[in-house]
């Protein structure tokens, strides 16, 4: 039991530092594309600590306080059901008790909790951001479910660990074995990470910063930390599902960074879609590929 708790803490620490590192790179990389120097690599950590060091934070009653907490809790719970490494006792969390379907549900819990808090705050921009987020979710989830379904039927299991185990060599990686599923999932991946062109939820020029509009001080600190950790969870999940998992932390970082780099270039190069354009986009190309792949799959069964 103690080992599990220690392992969980380690997972939190690892995702936090990995996330801060990646997003530090993200800011510097963006700055370079902008032809400027950019902040130091650890600027995100400084920002985060500063937010926690703010003396004041606005409150709107108990539900508002709970929002960031639910969000962070949701993130950490999802994290615990994702195995980080294969063939290792380390960084497994509770993944042996859960499966992919549970995880898909858990990943939605955080945003829903936040939606309640934003609703309590009564800020129209926040409410609008949440509405946009939920609308966008419809677009994102459909291709994601399709690719996950393909994967599950392909591997014949719903356990993440087992899916990961099955990918023993490069040619067996799900990315090679089920290229259609991988491509479809990449679209939802970019959307789930909140990169342009699917970042309409928190667009500052439209709805201030959407769901975060009313959060300041330590709440924002929680949300910022939560965001980077959640991004890492998604990266690791994709590594597990499609890139053959990782046997140690360095391989994990290398693989997840490759995915992160993809997200980064897409985010840097494109402006953002409107909400319905984003949903439209998701329900066109990815959906067609996805449905095509599913049909092919059932044909071959």
């Amino acid at each position, binding site marked *: 039991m103690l080992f599990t708790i220690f392992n969980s803490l380690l997972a939190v620490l690892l995702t936090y530092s990995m996330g801060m590192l990646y997003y530090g790179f993200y800011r510097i990389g963006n700055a370079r594309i902008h032809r400027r120097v950019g*902040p130091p690599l650890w*600027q995100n950590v*400084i920002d985060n600590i500063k937010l926690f060091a703010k003396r004041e934070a606005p409150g709107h009653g108990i539900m508002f306080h709970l929002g960031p907490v639910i969000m962070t809790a949701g993130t950490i719970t999802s994290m615990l059901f994702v195995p980080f490494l294969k063939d290792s006792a380390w960084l497994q969390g509770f993944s042996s008790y859960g499966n992919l379907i549970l995880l898909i549900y858990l990943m939605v819990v955080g945003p829903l909790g936040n939606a309640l808090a934003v609703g309590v705050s009564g800020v129209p921009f926040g409410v609008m951001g949440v509405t946009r987020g939920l609308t966008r979710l419809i677009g994102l989830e459909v291709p994601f479910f399709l690719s996950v379904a393909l994967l599950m039927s392909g591997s014949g299991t719903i356990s993440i660990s087992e899916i990961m185990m099955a990918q023993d060599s490069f040619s067996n990686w799900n990315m090679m074995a089920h290229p259609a599923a991988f491509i479809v999932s990449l679209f939802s991946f970019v959307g789930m990470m909140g990169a342009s062109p699917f970042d309409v939820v928190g667009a500052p020029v439209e709805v201030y910063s959407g769901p975060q509009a009313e959060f300041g001080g330590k709440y924002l600190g929680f949300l910022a930390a939560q965001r980077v950790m959640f991004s890492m969870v998604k990266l690791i999940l994709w590594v597990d599902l499609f890139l053959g998992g990782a046997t140690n932390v360095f391989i994990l970082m290398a693989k997840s960074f490759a995915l992160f780099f993809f997200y980064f270039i897409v985010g840097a190069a494109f402006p953002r879609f409107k909400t319905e354009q984003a949903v439209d986009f998701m329900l066109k190309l990815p959906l067609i590929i996805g449905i095509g792949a599913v049909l092919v799959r059932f044909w071959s069964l």
Partner: protein
Amino acid sequence: MDNLNKKDKAQLKELKSPMAVVDWAVNWFRKQSIFMLAYGTGCGAIEIPPTVTARYDAERFGVRGAATPRQADVIVLSGYLAVKTLKRVIRTYEQMQEPKYVIALGSCPINGGMYWDSYNTIKQLDRYLPVDVTVAGCMPRPEAVLEGFMALKDKIQRGEAEGARDYRDNIEKYKNNQKEIFGDKMLPGYTCDWYFSDGGSF
């Protein structure tokens, strides 16, 4: 990118008690990460984009834009303030979270500037809001604006950038001054006090 520069290290060596070190560290984090509220109040708004974009790149110093007052640390009042704007600025300032800072750019907030005889702009900003740093110029160049940010950083590190506390302590004085121009169309008291039923922070 020497974040802990020589000046900081020298200061750190002089500190004696652990609490002082903690205070120092908190101030260090505050000064290294400054979220600037994007509110173009006057002409000076035109020199803010060059300051934060590629040519001068204020993000090197940890200065970045924030969208809403809740997330911001510093409000840059760039130039003259019409009476109508001042009302919104006060409201915005009161919504920001402590510790919060004000940078004033240009001549106009100091003594009216070239609009000293205009019937619709205020003449002395520090009568209505606590100003931390003022930069001279009409408009200040991006270099001068950067120097303004550095002066603010020094002030934060010294622990003297407590405009918000000053505003709370002397709320009577500030509100009376504001009343002089708004008359009975005053804003309600300190925004947080009436906006949040549970009293703001805990």
